[in-house]
């Protein structure tokens, strides 16, 4: 087999000439950027950073991923992405939420080069994903939503294959580290077909990490994964983030996004409807409401209570007080005293907090 490869390499020298001819004759598929992806053999750039010297960065302060005016209409005529504009910062964990069919996978697939964009531009670390596809794709690792693996290959071989495919020289120590981190080491010589679903998912993560990507896409990495494994997976994700890897993930478990993400984006029907710092979101989550059911209906809030910013609801039979649960003084005690002084009686009391889940559900419902 390896003898065949040697012979093939000799022939490869020949094909190098043929390629020159081929491209001179018919043009390179990405002629505009000929200089950055032609002459540079990955073989001679083993450090991995390919073609950066040659290519022009559009914006030196560029984001890890920058999507502008992206549209995608499938051949069926279905418009899956409508004018997407999105910037993913370097080193962050970005969670993309959205109901089934919102376009999460389509967006990720388009960035990774699996789906052709209809229009718009996408930059990965400043490199256009179409014109400088080599430089862009070298930086990206993808764990797709579907479990698709070469059933008859061993874990070790399939992970090493991925590394080669992404243009990196073999490095058994790195593959070993990944497999150990993902608790796959004792399965390294097993054929993938003999693994369970959760293990296959880990194999796919290992494949995506094999070439040491700087940007990692995880499309529903925790679907069908048990609790313990999910925790392991998040540990790996955190460690990656520590090492400076940018991570974009989708999930249907909102608590997960709450725990892991630095920023949260919500997509619905092919449109990005919210992008927010998670902490910002949590601050608005920190807002709580106190509802008091009054004994009598009131037409207005008495002036003595003006400083509380109260609202009347349910045709005057309910008073609503909004406060920040994170503050030391919520003002509830004094409000109740002042109500007593003003002679307003109440017969029930209720507090309420809106969750990210609720915000999410409301946002998405509004769009329907």
């Amino acid at each position: 087999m390896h003898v065949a490869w040697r012979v093939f390499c000799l022939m490869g020298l020949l094909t190098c000439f043929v390629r020159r001819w081929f491209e001179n004759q018919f043009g390179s598929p990405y002629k505009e950027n000929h200089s950055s992806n032609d002459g540079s053999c990955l073989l001679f750039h083993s450090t991995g950073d390919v073609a950066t010297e040659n290519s022009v960065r559009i914006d030196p302060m560029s984001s890890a991923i920058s999507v502008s005016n992206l549209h995608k209409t499938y051949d069926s005529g279905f418009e899956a992405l409508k004018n997407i504009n999105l910037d993913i910062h370097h080193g962050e964990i970005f969670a993309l939420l959205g109901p089934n069919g919102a376009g999460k996978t389509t967006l990720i697939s388009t960035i990774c080069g699996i789906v052709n964009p209809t229009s718009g531009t996408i930059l990965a670390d400043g490199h256009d994903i179409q014109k400088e596809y080599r430089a862009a794709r070298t930086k990206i690792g993808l764990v797709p939503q579907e479990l698709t693996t070469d059933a008859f290959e061993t874990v070790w071989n399939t992970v090493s294959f991925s590394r080669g495919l992404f243009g990196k020289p073999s490095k058994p120590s790195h593959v070993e580290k990944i497999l150990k981190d993902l608790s796959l080491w004792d399965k390294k010589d097993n054929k993938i077909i003999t693994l369970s679903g959760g293990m296959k998912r880990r194999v796919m993560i290992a494949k995506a990490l094999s070439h040491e990507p700087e940007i990692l896409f995880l499309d529903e990495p925790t679907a069908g994964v048990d609790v313990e494994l999910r925790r392991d997976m998040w540990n790996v994700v955190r460690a990656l983030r520590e090492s400076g890897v940018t991570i974009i993930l989708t999930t249907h478990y909102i608590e997960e996004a709450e725990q892991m993400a630095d920023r949260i984006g919500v997509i619905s029907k092919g449109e990005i409807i919210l992008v927010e710092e998670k902490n910002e979101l949590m601050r608005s989550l920190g807002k709580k409401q106190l509802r008091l059911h009054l004994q009598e209906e009131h037409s207005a809030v008495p002036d003595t209570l003006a400083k509380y910013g109260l609202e009347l609801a349910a045709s005057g039979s309910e008073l609503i007080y909004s406060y920040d649960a994170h503050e030391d003084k919520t003002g509830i005690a004094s409000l109740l005293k002042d109500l007593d002084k003003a002679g307003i009686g109440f017969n029930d009391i209720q507090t309420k907090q809106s969750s990210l889940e609720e915000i999410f559900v409301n946002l998405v419902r509004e769009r329907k």
Partner: protein
Amino acid sequence: MNLYAIRAIYLFEMHRTWRTIMQSIISPVISTSLYFVVFGSAIGGRIPEINGVSYGAFIVPGLVMLSLLTQSISNASFGIYFPKFTGTIYELLSAPVSYFEIVIAYVGAAASKSIILGVIILATAALFVPMRIEHPFVMVLFLVLTAVTFSLFGFIIGIWADGFEKLQLVPLMIVTPLTFLGGSFYSIDMLPPFWRTVTLFNPVVYLISGFRWSFYGLSDVHIGTSLAMTLVFLIVCILIVRWMFKTGYRLKS
């Protein structure tokens, strides 16, 4: 050029052959050997020599071509169809490899396999019938050219096919008949004039004729014509592959 990727795909494909060695190497060798036993020894003994070559020896180049064609097509078409079928193609599409590199790796692996197979079959044939190779260089050239051309053709079929039936359809319905009618078992001079003309539209005739010339110096059409026709077919295949990748035909939505 991403040589690591070419190497990874090439070795992956060769490894797949090794795993399926029964199907990809042993079974073609056995079936070709049966041809030699039946046509070369059993029936061939009663058929007169053709231009001084015994019938058993006469059919060797055609039979090698038959295996070379069918195996190149099936190796290459399966090699690219299977990732499409299982979905593992996502990795190829998201990797920093150019179309040219993908083609080189897949077609190179498929062609290597067929060449190895062709050589094994030739060696097997030498056990059954007396053989000579008058123009070894031309023989090797035809072997390589045919393997590459038809691996490329198989690659096209693999991309075009969206089901297993289609994958089988072209080899079964078109290539096998063309090969059998392409002069594997006879010289087209033996045909009535009308059919001789019809046969000249069969591209396989040129391959077999040229290949046989390299063995015995006998040919139905001029060796230059054979070579030219093979090259034309090769270029047509290259153009089709280029178009497929350029448009993402049946690879990307």
